């Protein structure tokens, strides 16, 4: 039998060689000094690596995984609060919205205000110092006959 290469020896150590091939390999290694030394070195390293214990038996990630996938539920203060409180909150929001909407409406625009002020002044000029505050009717008098 040919000398087994290093990867074959490692596979033998790992238990990945078919059972039918294992015994001939072991027999060769037992009888070949060079192969026996190589196998012994690999076996020693294999055994030394036993020191790298990684006992994960006390660790359970199932809850963490489920939580990470589901995502945390965010509390909804509006839906969770009592009906009266919801109504009050809705009215407040509507009022505030209405205020700000009105503030920026057409009737509060600069141009509209200027036009409104101008209209007032114009009316004042049409009705100067009227005792009643109302416009005196303008009565057309008959033209005097020409002599």
């Amino acid at each position, binding site marked *: 039998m040919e000398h087994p290469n290093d*990867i074959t020896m490692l596979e033998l150590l790992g238990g*990945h060689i078919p059972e039918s091939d294992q015994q001939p390999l072991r027999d060769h290694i037992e009888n070949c000094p060079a192969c026996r030394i190589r196998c012994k070195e690999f076996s020693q390293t294999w055994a030394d*690596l036993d*020191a790298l214990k990684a006992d994960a038996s006390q660790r359970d*990630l*199932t809850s963490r995984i489920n939580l*990470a*996938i589901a995502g945390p539920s965010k509390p909804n203060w509006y839906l969770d609060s009592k009906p009266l409180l919801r109504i009050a909150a809705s009215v407040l929001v509507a009022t505030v919205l209405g205020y700000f909407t009105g503030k920026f409406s057409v009737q509060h625009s600069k141009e509209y205000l200027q036009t409104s002020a101008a209209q007032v002044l114009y009316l004042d000029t049409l009705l100067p110092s009227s005792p009643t505050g109302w416009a005196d009717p303008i009565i057309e008098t008959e033209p005097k006959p020409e002599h």
Partner: protein
Amino acid sequence: MTDDKLTDVELMQAVALGDMGKLGVLAQRHQGQSLALAYRTLGNWDQAEDIVQEAFIRVHKAAKKYRPDAKFTTWLYRIVINLCLDEKRRIQRAGFNIADIGAQQSGNPLDDPAVVQEKNEQIQKVWRALDRLNKRQRMAVVLHRFQGLSHQEITEVTGWSASAVESLLVRAYRNLRRDLDPKKNDSF
């Protein structure tokens, strides 16, 4: 049929249909080995837990695309390995805190302190030797020695060629032998 009797493929099919309970069964079944793989690669339990959590989240997201061409563990380990390699690149560190590892693996406090001390020193020596390997050699050794994968299965998990895996394994074991027993480094 109880969940324990379902195969990994059957569980994945259930997860693809939205059954979160079956994902929990998969996690219970495989988290131990996945954690050990991540821990031996990164040397830190907290990071290992984060990696494995993320791996199962990805399993959940990709459940509908999962095809049982290979074993579920091959697919899962590939995800874990890629996450570990990304983590190592991210933190860009050469090693890990050997002192922490020694403390974690302390024996029974009732044991003879001298024996415990010697055992811890041996543990640290082996961790250091593993840490001196390059990323790929270390990964190959961890998969071969601890996950029990054959060199063919390692090629499937890592995507490396068969010849590359063989070379990595042989060099890794030789380098470890050289570091663990310098007197015998001529025997190879």
